[in-house]
C-alpha cells in the first residue's frame, strides 16, 4: 500500500490501524474528514484518533470496511459479528455513519 493512499485510524488505547483510504471512506464520517474543502488537522497528518472507540471495536470496523468493499453488492455473504460486540459496534457504526 502506498503511503498517500492510506490513513491511520487510532483507537482509544492508542492502537494504530493503517488502512486504505478507500476502505476508511466507507464511513461517511471519515470520508467527510478526509475530503472536506478546508484542511482539518486530520487530513494534514493523515490520521484520525477515536478516543471513544476501543481497539477491539475499531479492529472489527476496519474488517467491516474491507468486507463492504468486497461483498456489499452481493447478498450471499454475511459479515460475522461476535454477539458481545454487537452493542458497541452498533454505536460505533452510528457514530461513523457506516
Amino acid at each position, binding site marked *: 500500500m502506498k503511503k498517500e493512499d492510506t490513513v491511520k485510524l487510532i483507537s*482509544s488505547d492508542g492502537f494504530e490501524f493503517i488502512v486504505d483510504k478507500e476502505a476508511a471512506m466507507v464511513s*461517511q*464520517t471519515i470520508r*467527510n*474528514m478526509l475530503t*472536506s*474543502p*478546508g*484542511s*482539518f*488537522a*486530520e487530513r*494534514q497528518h493523515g490520521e*484520525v*484518533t*477515536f*478516543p*471513544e472507540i*476501543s481497539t477491539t471495536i475499531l479492529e472489527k470496523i476496519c474488517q*467491516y470496511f474491507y468486507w463492504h468493499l468486497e461483498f456489499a453488492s452481493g447478498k450471499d455473504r*454475511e*459479515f*460475522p*459479528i*461476535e*454477539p*458481545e460486540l*454487537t*452493542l458497541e*459496534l*452498533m*454505536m460505533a*457504526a452510528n*457514530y461513523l*455513519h457506516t
Partner: protein
Amino acid sequence: MSNHHMKKHFPIEAFKHKVIMDPNIAHENWKIIEHAIHQIYNHNANAVACEVIYRHAYNMVLQNFGEKLYSGLVATMTSHLKEMATSIEGTQGDSFLEELNKKWNHHHKSLQMIRDIMMYMDNKYVPNAQKTPVYELGLNLWTEHVIYSEQIKTRLSNTLLDLICRERVGEDVNGELIRNTTKMLMDLGSSVYEQEFETPFLQVSAEFYRAESQKFIDCCDCGDYLKTVERCLDEEMDRVCEYLDPSTEKKITNVIEKEMIANYTLRLIHMENSGLLNMLRDDKYEDLCRMYNLFCRVSDGFYKIFEVMILHVRKSFKELITQLERSDDPSEFVQRLLDEQHKYEKIINLAFNNDKLFQYALYCSFEVFTDF
C-alpha cells in the same frame, strides 16, 4: 450488519461515556464547538481536529441538546456574516465586488467544513425538528445578512448594471468578476438572481435598446438597420455566455426582439428606397434572408412580410399580363411569366428557407393567372 445466534451468555457493559448529559457539560461541549467555528472563519481550520468537534456535536444531539447546538450555530454564523458585511460595506469603488467575492468564497468554504463536522446533527436532529439543513442554512444566512444588507443590496445591483452599461459603450470590464458574482447569486437561489440582478438588468437593457433603435432607425437604411439588430443580438449572446446565467439568454433576446424589431416591422418593410419591395426587386437575397429570420422571431413579423410580398407578387403578375395581353408574341408572354415565377421561387429558396407557406401562396398566385 447482521447477527449470528448467541453462543454464550454475555454481560452487557455500561457505556464508556456518561449516558445522561447535564446542561453544564452540554454548554462546555457547545463552547468547544463554537471555538472551532471561530477558528474555521478565522482561516485557522488546520488547528481544528474534525473528529473532536464531530464527537462533541454527536454527543449533544444524542443527549437531546440538538436545539442548543443548532441555535448556537445560527448565532455564531450570523455574527461572522455581519462582520463580513461590514467589511464589504466599507470598500471604495471598484474593490466592492472583489471584496464581496472574496468573502463569499471564504464563507462558502467554511460552510462546507461546518456542514461536514455537523453531519450527525444534519442527519438526525434536523429532519426530526424540521429545521433547515446546515448547507442551505448557511446560504440563507449569507443572503439575509450580506446580500440583503441595506448598504449592500442596491449597491450590488447598481455596480453590476453599471459595469454592463460601460461595456456596452465599449469599455473593457472584468468579466470574470461579474461571472463569479452572478454565479454566487444563482447559488443562493434563482429568485435571488432574478430579483437582485436579472430583472433590473432586463429593464435597463430595454431602455438601452429602445434608445439605440431610435438612433439607428433614423439614420440607417433597412438593410443596415437589420445588420445592426443582428450585431446586437450576437453581442448579448456573447454576454450571456461570458458572465450571465444561461436562463437569461431567452429573456434578453426577447427584449431586443421587442425593442428593435417588433416596434418597427411595418416601418422597415415600407422604408422608402430600401424596404421589402426594393429588396425583392433587386434580388437582395442576404438582406431578405436577414429580414425573414429576424421578423420570424416576433409574433406578427412573418405575416407582415408574407402579406406585403404576396400582394406585390399578384400585382406584378397582373401588370405583366395586362402588358403582354397587348403584345402579339405569346411565347415572350409565357417566358416572362415563367421568369417572374422563377425569380420569386429563387427568393423563397435562398432567403426564406423554402418556406412552405410562401411556396404555396406563390403557386396559387401563379395558378390564378395562368388560367387565362
